[in-house]
C-alpha cells in the first residue's frame, strides 16, 4: 500500500491505519521515497477504503513489551495475549529486530545438553547456545521429536533456570494443539512462552512471529539469566510469507522466486541464538522446517544449513520401517559436537565411538545396497558382518521411541554393544586404549 503526502516518516517504522468503521490495522514502512511511503499491512486489506482511511505513524519500529511474567502465557503472532489472561505489565519494550551480537562478545557453546535421544546425544550432540534445525518433510513426526527434546533436554549437574519459547508460524490448529497439550501434560507450560500464528492468521504476521519469540527469548536469556530453548515451526511458512512480501515489492527474485536476501534474512533470526559475555543465560534454537518434496537442495533447507550449526534430518525410509524417531543419521550433523563431548563433559570414549559408529554404519549401508543388487552371496564375509551391524544399529540405536529417555552412558554402552558385532581389529577410529577399556566382555 502506498501512502502519499507524509512528512518525517522513517524507514521500518510501525504505522496504524484507521478504517472508516473505526478499526485499527497495523502496517510497516518498506520504502520511503520522497513524500510517498510504501507500507506493508500486517492484516488483510478488507474493508480498507482509499478515500476515508487514515494512517498514523508511531515513530518507532515494531516492539514487544517484555516481562518475566510472560512465562506460562500464550500470545498471538503480534505479541498480544490470547489466553484471556490479563495484559502484560511490561518491564520494557524491545525492538523485535534485535541487534547483531558482536562476535568478540560471544562465548563458544560447549556445554553438553542431554536430550535422552541416542541419535542426537551419541552422534549429533546438542550444546547450549547452538542452533540445530530439524529438516523434515510433510507427514513426518518432527513435532513429536521436538516435543521429546523439549521434555527431556537437561544439562547434567546443573540446576539453572530453564525456559521454553515456542513460536508457531503458520501451522495448523491441530499441530499447535499437540504442542500445547504436551507442554500441559508434562507441566512444562509454566515455564513456556507461546507465540501462535496459525495457518488461518494473516501471512504477513508470520514475518514478525519468530522475531517476537526471539525477542522474548533474548530478554529471558540475557536479562533474566535463564537457559532458553526456542522452538520455531515451520520456517518454510515463514519463507513463503517473505516471498509474498518480496513479490509485492516487485523485487528481482532469486532462486525459486525467493528474494535474494533470504539468506541474510534467515541469518538475522538464527544468529540470535548463542551465549554472550556478561550473562549467564543462553539461547538454544531448534527451528523446524519441512523440506518441499523432501529436497535438501531447496533454497530454504539449503540456506538454513549454511547458517545453522548442523542439522537433524528425518528420513521417510526410517519412518516407513517404523523406527522412531526416524533420524537419517548419515547426513545429520552437529558442528559443535567436538567441543561438547569427551572427558568431563560426556565420557572419554565418546569421540572415537561416534566416528566409528558413523563410518561403520556408512559401510554397512553400502554393503546392504550391494546386497540388493547382487545378492548376499556376492558379499565378502566382512561386508556381511557390516550389513548385520547396520541392521542392528537401526533396530536398537535409532529406534528408541518418543518416550524413552536414555542417559549418555546408556547410549555409549549401547554403541559399544553394537560395535562388538564387528571384529576388534576394525576399530580403526578409536584409540587402542579405549577399545581395551570399553570393549564388552564375554
Amino acid at each position, binding site marked *: 500500500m502506498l501512502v502519499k503526502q507524509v512528512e518525517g516518516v522513517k524507514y521500518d517504522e510501525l504505522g496504524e491505519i484507521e478504517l472508516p468503521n473505526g478499526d485499527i490495522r497495523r502496517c510497516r514502512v518498506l*520504502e520511503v521515497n520522497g513524500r510517498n511511503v510504501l507500507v506493508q499491512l500486517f492484516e488483510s486489506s478488507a474493508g480498507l477504503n482509499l478515500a476515508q482511511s487514515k494512517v498514523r505513524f508511531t515513530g518507532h519500529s515494531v516492539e514487544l513489551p517484555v516481562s518475566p511474567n510472560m512465562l506460562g502465557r500464550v500470545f498471538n503472532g503480534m505479541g498480544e495475549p490470547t489466553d484471556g489472561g490479563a495484559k502484560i505489565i511490561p518491564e520494557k519494550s524491545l525492538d523485535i529486530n534485535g541487534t547483531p551480537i*558482536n562476535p568478540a562478545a560471544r562465548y563458544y557453546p560447549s556445554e553438553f545438553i542431554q536430550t535422552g535421544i541416542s541419535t542426537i546425544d551419541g552422534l549429533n550432540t546438542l550444546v547450549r547456545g547452538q542452533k540445530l534445525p530439524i529438516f523434515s518433510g510433510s507427514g513426518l513426526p518432527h513435532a513429536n521429536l521436538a516435543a521429546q527434546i523439549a521434555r527431556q533436554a537437561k544439562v547434567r549437574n546443573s540446576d539453572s533456570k530453564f525456559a521454553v519459547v515456542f513460536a508457531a508460524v503458520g501451522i495448523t490448529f491441530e499441530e499447535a494443539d499437540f504442542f500445547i497439550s504436551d507442554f500441559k501434560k508434562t507441566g512444562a507450560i509454566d515455564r513456556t512462552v507461546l507465540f501462535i500464528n496459525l495457518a488461518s492468521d494473516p501471512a504477513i504476521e508470520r514475518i514478525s512471529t519468530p522475531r517476537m519469540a526471539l525477542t522474548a527469548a533474548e530478554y529471558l536469556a540475557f536479562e533474566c539469566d535463564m537457559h532458553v530453548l526456542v522452538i520455531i515451526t515451520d520456517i518454510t511458512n515463514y519463507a513463503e510469507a517473505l516471498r509474498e512480501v518480496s513479490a509485492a515489492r516487485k523485487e*528481482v527474485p532469486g532462486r525459486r522466486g525467493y528474494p535474494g536476501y533470504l539468506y541474510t534474512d534467515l541469518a538475522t533470526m538464527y544468529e540470535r541464538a548463542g551465549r554472550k559475555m556478561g550473562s549467564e543465560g543462553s539461547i538454544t534454537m531448534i527451528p523446524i522446517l519441512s523440506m518441499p518434496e523432501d529436497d535438501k537442495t531447496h533454497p530454504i533447507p539449503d540456506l538454513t544449513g549454511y547458517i545453522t550449526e548442523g542439522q537433524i534430518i528425518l528420513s521417510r525410509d526410517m519412518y516407513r520401517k517404523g523406527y522412531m524417531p526416524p533420524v537419517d543419521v548419515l547426513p545429520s550433523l552437529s558442528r559443535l559436537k567436538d567441543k561438547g563431548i569427551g572427558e568431563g563433559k560426556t565420557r572419554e570414549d565418546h569421540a572415537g565411538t561416534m566416528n566409528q559408529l558413523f563410518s561403520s554404519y556408512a559401510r554397512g549401508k553400502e554393503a546392504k545396497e550391494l546386497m540388493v543388487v547382487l545378492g548376499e552371496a556376492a558379499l565378502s564375509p566382512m561386508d556381511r558382518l557390516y550389513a548385520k551391524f547396520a541392521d542392528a544399529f537401526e533396530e536398537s540405536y535409532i529406534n528408541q521411541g518418543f518416550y524413552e529417555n536414555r542417559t549418555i552412558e546408556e547410549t555409549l554402552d549401547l554403541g559399544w554393544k553394537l560395535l562388538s558385532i564387528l571384529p576388534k581389529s576394525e576399530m580403526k577410529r578409536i584409540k*587402542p586404549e579405549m577399545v581395551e577399556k570399553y570393549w564388552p566382555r564375554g
Partner: protein
Amino acid sequence: MIQGKILKVSGPLVIAEGMREANMFDVVRVGEKHLIGEIIEMHGDRASIQVYEETAGIGRGDIVVSTGAPLSVELGPGLLTNIYDGIQRPLEAMRAKCGSNITKGIEVPSLDRDKVWHFEANLAFGDRVSEGDVYGTVMETEVIQHKILVPPRKKGTIVELRSGDFRITDRIGKLKLEDGTIEEITLMQKWPVRVARPYAKKLPPVEPMISGQRVIDALFPIAKGGTACVPGPFGSGKTVVQHQLAKWSDVDLVVYIGCGERGNEMTDVLREFPELKDPRTGKSLMMRTVLIANTSDMPVAAREASIYTGITIAEYYRDMGYSVAVIADSTSRWAEALREMSGRLEEMPGEEGYPAYLTSRLAQFYERAGKVVCLGEDGREGALSAIGAVSPQGGDISEPVTQATLRIVKVFWGLDSSLAYRRHFPAINWLNSYSLYRDRLSDWFSENVSKNWMENTGKLLKILQNENELQEIVKLVGVDALSAEDRMTLEVAQSIREDFLQQNAFEEDDSFTHLDKQNALIELIFSFDEKARRALASGADIQSISELPVREKIGRAKAVPYDKYKTEYAKIDAEITEQLDFLVANAGE
C-alpha cells in the same frame, strides 16, 4: 563540506539529493546517528549510497554529509591479533564501548591511538627515499617485525627521523618532498580499499605453500602467491579446511575474513588461535593473524567491503616482504551482498539475479594475489595467496559464483558431501579436484623433500583413478569377478583413502603432517603394495592378505608423532615383510 538530504530509503540503499560536488565512492555519514555509507552511483545531483549499518529509523530529509575521502583502512602497528568488522572497526574496542551487541553509528578508531610502540629507525637525516623504502621497524608481535614504509607515490629527503617510543599518530620525523613541501612521518598510513597497492613487478609462483594437510600438499598443492577455491555444500567441512589452512600454512601472516558466516565460528577462531602454537616459531598463532568478521547477522553492505578491507591489509604486509595468506569464508556471501545491492539499484540482472559484473569483480579480487617484487630499493619479495570458500546453493557447482571463480583460480579443492557422510575428512574429492601448480612446483618438491615425491604422488592419483573404474565393475558384477591383481588395487586404494588421505583435524599428531613424513607414509603404503603383489605371485591368497594384522598398524601410522616416525615406520615395514613371508610359506596348505 558537502551536505545533502535524503530522498529515498530502501533497506541498505539510500538516495540523497544535493550531492553534485561529492565524488564517487566517497564515504558519507547518514542521518542523526552518523551511519557509515559509501556513494556507489551518481545521477545528476542524486547520489545512491550503500549504508554499512542497519537503516531502520532513517527517513526523508535526514542529512547526509560527505567525508570527501574514499573508504580506506588504517595501516600501521596494531593490526595483528585484532578482530575487525567489515569496515575495519575493532570489535573488541566496540565491545568495551557499547556492550555485547553492535549498536549503530558507533565510532572507534581502527588502530589503538594510545598504545606506545618502540620504533627503531633505519635511515637518518639527509637520506633520499622513495616509495616502498623502509624508514625503520617496530616489533609488532613476538614473531612479526613491522616495517614502516614510505607510502606509495612519495619521494623526497629525510629532514628528521628518530628512534624512540611513539604512539601511531605521533610524529617520528619529517620528509621534504621534491616540490619542497615538508610532510610529517607517522607510524600509520591510510589506503583506499578498492585500489590495489602498487608493487614493482609480479613473479610466477614457484614455491609451495605447505599446509600440512596431506591431501592438499601431496595431491593438489597451492603455491605461495597462488589462488585457490574450496566449494562445497553445507556440512562438507569447508570451514574446517579453511581453519586448518589458517592454522598450519607456512606463511608469515594470515588474514582471515569471515564473510557472512556464523558468529560462533569467528568466536571459535578468536578463542582457539591464541592457545595454538605455530609449529615453526613455537609462538601463539594469534601473533600472526588478523581477523575480519562480518557475521551473517551483521549488515549486508559491509559484507561487500569486508573482502577488500582484508586483502588491503594483506597487501600492506606483503609490501614489507612477507608471505601472506588471505582466507575468505565465504565469497558466495560476498556475491550475494553484491546481488542485493544490485537489485536495490534496479540494475538489469545477469544469471540467477547476480549482477553482470560479478565475474569481473571476482577476478579483480583474486588478481590482487601473487608473488611480487615489492617497491623499495632492496628489491624484497613478498607473496599474497588467496583462498576463497564458495558455498554453492544445493552443492551444485554449476551456479554462477563457483563457475566465475573456477575461471580465475588455479587450484580447485572440491568438497563432496558423500565423503563427508562417511566421515572422510577432509572431504576433498580426489577425482574432480585439481591444481595447476603441480608441474611448476615439481622442482621445489624434488629438491626439498625427495626426488620420488612427484612420482609417488602421481602414482597415488593413478591408483585412485583406477579404483574408481574398478568400483564401477564391482557395482555391476560383484567383487568376486575381479582378478586378484585388481582386488589388490582396491585394497591399496582403500589404504590410501583411509590411511593417508583421511586426516583428523582434532587430533594433535594428525592435524599437521610434515612433508617428509607424508612421503614416508606414501612409501610405506607402496611398500605394502609391492610386497603383497609379490606374495600374490608366490601363491598367497588375496583374502588373507587383506586381513593381515599389520594393516591395522599401517592405519595408525599417520598418528605416530613426528620425532618417532622413522623408527616406527621401519618397524611396520619389517612386520609387513614378516607377515607376508609367513603367508607365502603357508600358502597352499
